[in-house]
């Protein structure tokens, strides 16, 4: 990397997140590289999902949630007084733990995002649907079934369709919150292949409980833990290979060798 400072896509600077009185994230600063997969790992309840959701302001939905510090997408502040959660979310796609297709047709599930951004032309929408489905390698399977309900598909196909739906709004980064945890091992490997392909063009952050998965797909890994005061904190953040072969922090070593968590 010639100039690593210029190379990040997402960044947090001194993020503190509170749910009411509960301090959920403590002073987290990290930079997410462009065109890479960053895995957030750590024991249950350490704030992995909370951290992931600070990037697209999904924590805004929780009453009493309060955030300090700043996060950026490119150079644009995510929480600054000028920034608008809706605009931020258009730039950051999100895929959830379980496939959460809307109860409508395959076509509408993908077209609904672009439509909400004002694209009305049928030809344009058709093009977006086809492109998004091709990106997740579903187009050839589904091209004659676009009017069927999305919920008629297998879980793996549904999750692919959720990824396609997120890609249809042309995001700059993708967040995946344990997106393979509801899938069987074969489907998981297929989604992982898709992630690697997408990482050629997007910054991807995944939250995962599955350390093999982190090793298999991620370029960078962030290990989080619950601090003594119950707040989630970032213990170690480095190249995935380095972290798993030569962890710098003994707590990281303890976790990845399975001694706790």
């Amino acid at each position: 990397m010639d100039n690593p400072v210029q190379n990040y896509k997402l960044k947090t600077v001194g993020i503190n997140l509170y749910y009411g009185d509960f301090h959920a994230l403590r002073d987290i600063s990290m930079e997410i590289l462009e065109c890479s997969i960053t895995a957030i790992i750590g024991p249950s309840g350490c704030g992995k999902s909370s951290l992931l959701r600070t990037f697209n302001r999904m924590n805004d939905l929780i009453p009493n949630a309060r955030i300090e510090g700043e996060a950026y997408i490119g150079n644009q502040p995510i929480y600054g007084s000028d920034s608008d959660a809706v605009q931020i979310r258009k730039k950051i796609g999100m895929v959830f733990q379980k496939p959460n297709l809307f109860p409508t047709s395959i076509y509408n599930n993908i077209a609904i995002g672009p439509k909400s951004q004002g694209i009305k032309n049928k030809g344009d929408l058709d093009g977006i649907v086809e492109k998004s489905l091709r990106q997740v390698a579903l187009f050839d399977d589904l091209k004659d079934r676009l009017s069927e309900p999305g919920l008629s598909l297998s879980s793996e196909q549904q999750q692919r369709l959720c990824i396609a739906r997120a890609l249809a709004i042309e995001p700059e980064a993708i967040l995946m919150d344990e997106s393979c945890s509801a899938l069987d091992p074969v489907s998981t490997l297929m989604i992982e292949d898709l992630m690697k392909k997408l990482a050629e063009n997007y910054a991807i952050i995944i939250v995962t409980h599955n350390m093999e998965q982190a090793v298999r797909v991620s370029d960078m890994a962030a290990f989080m833990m619950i601090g003594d005061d119950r707040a989630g904190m970032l213990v170690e953040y480095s190249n995935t290979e380095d972290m798993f072969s030569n962890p710098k922090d003994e707590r990281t070593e303890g976790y990845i060798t399975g001694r706790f968590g």
Partner: protein
Amino acid sequence: MNKDTISKMVFFILALSSISALALITGFIFIQGLPLFFKVGFANIVFGTKWAPSQGSFGIFPMIVGSVCVTLGATLLGVPIGVCCSIFLVEYCPASLSNLFRPAIQLLAGIPSVVYGFWGLLFIVPFIRNNLGGPGLSMLAGSMILGIMILPTIISISEVSLKDLPRQYKEGALALGMTHWQAIYSVLLPAARSGITAAIVLGIGRAIGETMAVIMVLGNAVALPESILDPIRTLTTNIGIEMGYATGDHQQALFATGIVLFVIIMILNSFAQYIARRK
């Protein structure tokens, strides 16, 4: 017989008695009303426009039109208000306010219909007479009263169907960069469509069956209405007004009116159940 069998029998008999009440009433209405259909002719009753029981004319078509028109008017007024109210309660209303709203709406359901009618007679009827013309006793007055009376049904059932949607729908919609309203309009409302439709159909069923409140404000003239300011008579008010003195064929004609009403409400309720089950 052991105790379990006995208690099972007791519950079975009590359950049976509630069903048999339905069977008795239904049977009675049909036994009393059906002979007139054969005597006078189905078409002469259902499509006849002349209601003169003393002269042997039993046309209830004006009442069928009256019921349909008043109910349609109530739906036009009540459905937009009710559905918007349920959206507000689920999506926008802070908890403190909804704790005030919800009991108030339940209270609306608890007001006796005669009180609705009395209020309509004293306020809505003069208001229409003074501002819009006509006798005041009119289809419009009935529609307004019924539009209010069906609100609790529509609001509570739509509210439940919106509230029961998986949280993931809303999260998924917002994560796509939709505004709150876009998420409601393009994801949540379509997803709750079957519940909201059922709410509307049940509201319609409530409106078409209401009697007391509308007797007091409709004017009850047996004629095909030409404007919303004309007085009209519905199927229910036809029975309510004349049951006191009707005998013989006249009385049977009122039961025949009841049969028509019964069939309409049965169709509406089955439709509501069908929609609510089809997810």
